């Protein structure tokens, strides 16, 4: 197991370095081909050369390699790696530390993800298990139909309908019934409120979780059906174990491997969903920050945030791989 973890970790680090390098190349070529992002600072004004140079220096874009199309700019890349290694992720266009921005934004995204994950598990495991146990009965059909319906509503539709149709009357009703500033009134606030992060993240989190849960429900169902048909389940039953024990120990556990994999994959999907959710619900989170950074051509911020997100993704994948191996010993020897 130790060697397996080591191998996976090294692979993870390699992947991360590769991602960073590709990211660096892409931004470098984008700067070389598209022109100077420092110009974004001046908007409609045409800056003098010295003003431009001063701003370039401020954003670390003053290396001459950025003016030579095709030059991979390895110098600045190595320099940046060194800075990252020391925990220095640079500053955004206005000199604010990227780490400071992340420190403000990440907790909100993590809270959102926690809600999302709980919703996945409750819906996915609950409904998926129920459907598998009652295969081909009306409950099963109902759950499968529901999962198709969920798929038909992408997250932005859910949020749009929620904000414009439900949130306003619901929050009005909650305020009238429970009083202004009461917990139910906060639940239905149309936008995130930093003073009450948990309460105002709950509904967006549930919706984002709901939107991502359909594939999960079907996966859990399919993988449990496979287990139900397995020899080991028949053996367990024939030994006279009660059904509850069979389901929890032999069906659910054995069907967990593909589900855990899916958590890893869906995590990256949720990250994309978080960009939408955070944007629409005005949550100051990683997705929203990245969105704004791209819009404002804030190169240093984009690099910093994407690197951090890539690192998180690599870590999640690593955890998934390890969980995988823990659940199924065959994998670590493969």
């Amino acid at each position, binding site marked *: 197991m130790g060697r397996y973890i080591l191998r996976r970790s090294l692979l993870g680090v390699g992947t991360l370095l590769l991602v960073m390098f590709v990211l660096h190349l892409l931004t470098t070529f984008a700067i070389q081909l*598209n022109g100077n992002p420092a*110009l974004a600072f001046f908007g409609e004004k045409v800056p003098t050369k010295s003003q431009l140079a001063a701003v370039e220096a401020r954003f670390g874009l003053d290396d001459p390699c950025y003016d030579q199309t095709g030059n991979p700019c390895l110098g600045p890349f190595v320099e940046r790696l060194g800075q990252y290694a020391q925990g220095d992720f640079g500053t955004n266009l206005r000199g604010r530390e990227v780490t400071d921005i992340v420190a403000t934004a990440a907790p909100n995204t993590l809270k959102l993800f926690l809600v999302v994950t709980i919703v996945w598990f409750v819906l996915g495991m609950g409904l998926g298990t129920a459907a598998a146990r009652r295969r081909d009965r009306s409950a099963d059909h109902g759950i499968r139909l529901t999962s198709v319906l969920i798929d038909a509503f992408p997250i932005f539709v859910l949020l749009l309908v929620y904000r414009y149709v439900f949130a306003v009357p619901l929050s009005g009703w909650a305020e009238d019934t429970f009083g202004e500033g009461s917990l139910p009134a906060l639940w239905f606030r149309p936008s995130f409120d930093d003073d009450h992060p948990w309460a105002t993240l709950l509904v967006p989190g549930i919706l984002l979780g709901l939107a991502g849960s359909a594939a999960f429900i079907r996966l859990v169902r399919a993988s449990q059906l496979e287990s139900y048909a397995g020899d080991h389940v028949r053996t367990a039953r024939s030994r006279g174990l009660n059904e509850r024990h069979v389901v929890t120990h032999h069906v659910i556990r054995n069907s967990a491997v593909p589900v855990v994999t899916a958590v890893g994959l869906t995590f990256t999907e949720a990250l994309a969903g978080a960009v939408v959710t955070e944007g629409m619900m005005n949550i100051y989170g990683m997705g929203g920050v990245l969105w704004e950074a791209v819009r404002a051509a804030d190169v240093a911020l984009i690099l910093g945030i994407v690197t951090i997100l890539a690192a998180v993704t690599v870590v999640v994948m690593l955890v998934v791989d390890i969980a995988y191996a823990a659940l199924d010993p065959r994998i670590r020897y493969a």
Partner: protein
Amino acid sequence: MGRRAAVAATATAVALVLASCSGGGGGNDDEGDGGGGGGGSDPDATLNLALSQDVETLLPMDSNVGDNISVLDVVYDGLVRYDPETTEPYNYVAESVETEDNTVWTIKIKPDLTFQNGEPVDADAFARAWNYAAYGPNAMANNYFFERITGYEEMQGETDDDGNVTKEPEADTLSGLKVVDPQTLEVTLTGPFAGFGTMLGYTGFFPIAQECLDDIEACAVQPIGNGPFQVEKWDQGVGLTATRWEDYTLEETPEYGAIEWTEYTGEDNWPDFEAGNLDFAVPPPAEQQAAAGDPDLQERYVEGPGAALTYMAFPLYKDGPWKDVEFRKAISLAVDRQGIIDALLPSQRVPADSWVVPDVVPGGTGGTCEWCAFDPDAAKAALEKAGGWPDGEKLTIHLGQDATEQELFKAVGDSIQETLGIPYELDATPDYFARRGARDFSGPFRANWFPDYPLNENYLAPVYASGDAKNGNVEFGYYSADFEAAVKAGDEAATLDEAVAQYQEAEKILATDFPTIPLFVAQNTYYYSENVSNVVLDPFSGEPKLRLLEVTNG
């Protein structure tokens, strides 16, 4: 984001929110208004404003986005402020602003004014801010405002084409700035400019405290102002709180107690307004009909003219049919401005028929553009006179990547195509500014101008005057000796009124040369909640005057 782009974008984004927050005391229904003091405001009322997340700094020298400006307008006081009716400047922190030749200006500052940290607001406070802003290597966004002051050039240094510094700046202070005594500042300009007194109320000219200069980075997020509100806390990206400064001595201060800004990623805060968390908002296009049909909301609706002018410019530096004024006329006459607005953005734009927007700056009058009305027959005639459009070619219209503007310019292109039969394509480029600066456009392009200070000169000289007879201005290659002479005559005029009249002459030259086509003027609209009253939109910025608002705890 540059100032103009941002202003256009945030015209709708800026909304004021009155927190019907948890804590607050008071009755629920109607005006609780138990507090004395009059004025219609509760002294403990909190006004919550929505800000765009574009705000990255609150350093006056570095703030040129609409939203920073609206925050700084209550945190700092300038030498002059602008009349909400006429936008003309009047002395505020300044006791007097005098000049005899428009070149040497003597500014007397009112005595005994202090910053919120107790430091005096004196001539030094202004000089240190202006010197810092004018020093090139500091890369302040408002640097260019100081180019008219003697000694500016020496503070810029030089760089070669690759951006390497070839010469360090020779000076770190403006030689044209002299602190005569603590209350007197003498400013020498490089040449006469009648509008200098008008510029003094702009954010970039606010004073800063020595404590601020000593730690600029701290001051950028925690300003030390001299205005009626002081910033308590700014969680960047999340929200900003300002409370009333009790020791404020000047007269223009509102009665309510605090302002809370919530930062928004986009412009979509209408549901928050509807839910009672916001005081001011603009509905998104899809909700406009519903809002317009709500009689209750209509009572709390305010609109006013905006200052942003959208126009179409031509690459006059490149050969093409557009070099012929008749062709440009034809294009202008072919655009059904009113029809486009009615179909796409009713009440958010008005057709433009002048190069200086009327009613928002002194000297702005409508109707100076003779060929800005939709007239298909005249358009066809003009095109014929210009020799027509080359067969088989497409007219490329360049613009940035803003969804609303793309829709608008698609309609403009359709209008041209329908009237003149010129096929067109839109080129929405993410590198609009870089390409424009590099003269990389092969057809007409969208441009937008939001003035920096309320004077008609600002719509003219910065856009059209370059002093470069050979190449013309960078953006579109226009040059007119007559135009530059008229601007110069305005700069040298004895009084501001005469200057304004001279600048109007300059606008008339544009009307003849017709280098650009005025298209649309932004219109500012807001809905507001029951908690605020005395809503006055500043005709210049288009935003509610926070100092005039009356706020109660709803």
